[in-house]
């Protein structure tokens, strides 16, 4: 790479930083769905308590109580890597919310740069720039980022580098100039990916397996030799030592993370078909817009992808075979539900990795095809046209990405400053891990952020209260209804509060049925500010 390219990369990075942090630039309150709060909680807790965990604090562990069937309650649900990074940024900057969210944003778009490096090294600067810009502006990734499943995006930042180091190692072997350094780099990258999210490792395993088979067929021998066996063994031990402590974190995990039945075999005929799923259009996990490729790419994008695939099949050089292995491995990984290996909602998350692959294929196809043209003038015209076309596409995608991120979680669906202050007050004045019953906030994610920031476990209106054993506090929040001018809502809360104080009981609804929960003590008002009333239950 030329030195000047680092300036281009810096500009691309800063573009990514600007766009992806738009939701947090003007409003420093946390955003996202429930998962966002959960991931934030893990980073936040490490920095706040100045320690890392093997057992997470109870107020986080209660969310998915007893998730790990081997380790039991309050066990780690992921290896600590991704969350610990967030904690480090909170520590170095001294601020609680924004640094973690900036880190989360960076971790979600930084994959554009590993992709740039990979494509640049093998296919040139034009294809690399297109691929990187495409990933930075990926609508699919932006949606998942906004919702909060951010490690699912971050895990794929390693794939291009894994492919590159694998390619360098294998090709050096077949050229009889084996460079084992790339084998060690490959192992460290595999470890790194595993420590972020295991789903990425499963996809990588398939890709590497297929690429190894493809190269072995081409060269009619496996990348094996007497001297290499020693290095393979060292690398296997290295991987096991670095990852083994966390096997139990994944293996013990439950809640439908793995398994299923062989179903929807017709999906194998398509790249990613959802229309034939039984539950369509309510396929769970993600709304239909997540699968809308025209929004993620552009109208007719698949023609360019196909050009890329045809080019690779036509050339079949080592690097082209590597790309084809990546394509085939990705295809297999996003059909694992068909074979009953993983449920659909897990497999559909892997679709995020498709963006990097498709933009790389588009870039390789178009710009490499143009290079094949012998006439200088025609080649220049075609290249200019392709660059102009892709600039236009990226410009449109930029507008969509910017608008989506700028307007994300605006207004009352985001935690307000007053609610943040309330959470801080609770954090300072109420014993951590207390059980607080919440009522009044407009959305569930807002409440979840309240739980995290106050370091307490929150019980939601629609939770089965009996399962949580006890209620220590009751929080009634009028501020959201007041903000949106819902007088009926305010009246309802007022009646609810009076009943709770008078009867020492909570009235709640579970599956449409009205129920009552005896608080077992007198509610005593301990906080009344900004439309929020907090009662301590005196037992």
């Amino acid at each position: 790479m030329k030195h000047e390219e680092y300036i281009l990369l810096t500009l691309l990075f800063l573009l990514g930083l600007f766009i992806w942090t738009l939701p947090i630039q003007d409003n420093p309150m946390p955003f996202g769905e429930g998962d966002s709060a959960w991931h934030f909680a893990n980073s936040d807790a490490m920095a706040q308590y100045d320690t890392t965990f093997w057992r997470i604090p109870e107020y986080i562990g209660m969310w998915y109580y007893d998730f790990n069937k081997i380790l039991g309650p309050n066990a780690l649900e992921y290896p600590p890597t991704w969350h610990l990074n967030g904690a480090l940024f909170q520590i170095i900057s001294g601020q609680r919310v924004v640094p973690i969210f900036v880190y989360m944003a960076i971790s979600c778009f930084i994959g554009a740069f590993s992709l740039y490096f990979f494509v640049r090294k093998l296919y040139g600067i034009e294809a690399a720039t297109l691929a990187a810009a495409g990933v930075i502006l990926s609508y699919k990734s932006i949606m998942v980022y906004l919702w909060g499943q951010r490690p699912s995006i971050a895990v794929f930042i390693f794939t291009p580098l894994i492919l590159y180091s694998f390619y360098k190692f294998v090709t050096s072997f077949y050229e009889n100039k084996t460079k084992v350094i790339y084998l060690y780099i490959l192992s460290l990258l595999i470890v790194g990916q595993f420590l972020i999210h295991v789903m990425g490792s499963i996809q990588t395993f398939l890709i590497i397996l297929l690429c190894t088979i493809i190269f072995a067929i081409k060269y009619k021998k496996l990348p094996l030799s007497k001297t290499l066996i020693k290095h393979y063994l060292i690398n296997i031990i290295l991987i096991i030592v670095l990852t083994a402590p966390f096997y139990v974190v994944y293996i013990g995990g439950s809640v439908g993370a793995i398994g299923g039945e062989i179903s929807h075999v017709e999906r194998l005929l398509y790249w990613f078909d959802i229309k034939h799923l039984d539950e369509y259009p309510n396929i769970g996990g993600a709304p239909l817009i997540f699968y809308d490729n025209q929004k993620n790419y552009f109208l007719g994008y698949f023609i360019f992808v196909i050009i890329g695939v045809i080019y690779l099949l036509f050339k079949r050089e080592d690097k082209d075979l590597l790309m084809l292995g990546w394509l085939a491995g990705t295809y297999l990984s996003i059909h694992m539900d068909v074979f009953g290996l993983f449920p659909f909602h897990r497999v559909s998350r892997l679709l995020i990795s498709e963006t990097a692959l498709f933009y790389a294929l588009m870039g390789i196809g178009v710009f490499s095809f143009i290079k094949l043209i012998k006439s200088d003038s025609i080649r220049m015209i075609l290249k200019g046209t392709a660059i102009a076309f892709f600039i236009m596409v990226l410009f449109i995608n930029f507008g969509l990405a910017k608008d989506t991120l700028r307007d994300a979680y605006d207004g009352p669906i985001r935690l307000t400053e007053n609610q943040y202050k309330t959470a801080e007050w609770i954090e300072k004045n109420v014993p951590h891990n207390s059980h607080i019953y919440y009522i009044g906030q407009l959305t569930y994610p807002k409440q979840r952020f309240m739980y995290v920031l106050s370091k307490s476990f929150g019980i939601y209106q629609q939770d089965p209260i009996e399962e949580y054993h006890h209620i220590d506090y009751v929080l009634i929040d009028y501020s959201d209804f007041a903000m949106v001018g819902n007088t009926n809502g305010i009246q309802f809360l007022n009646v609810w509060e009076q009943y709770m104080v008078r009867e020492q009981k909570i009235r709640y609804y579970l599956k449409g049925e009205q129920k009552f929960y005896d608080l077992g003590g007198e509610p005593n008002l301990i906080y009344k500010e900004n439309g929020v009333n907090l009662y301590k239950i005196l037992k």
Partner: protein
Amino acid sequence: MKYEINYKTVFVICLTLATIVFIWLFGLMGFLILLGLCLFYGIANIFIFNQLPLEPDEKFFFGFFISFALFPMLVWYVNRLIPSLRISTVIALILIVVVGLIMKRKKKKEDDEK
């Protein structure tokens, strides 16, 4: 005359650009986040990956991305022994520098022997 820009100039330009944008977006906190990025994911680049027989751009990219996953793991392991995350982070950074210096010395010795 062909003008060639050296890597130090490029480094200064990139860092200046990044500093300006981070501060513009997030003020002093932005600067500290950038500092964190350089420290947590850059220090292994300078001290360890620079000693490896790789191309310069490979050192940069591998160093950054491997540090992204393995630096926090190093901190996590240190924190098993040292009960403060802040102190563990500092120790992890020092460990990387020490390992890098040992590698550098070893490499110099090998080069001298050749």
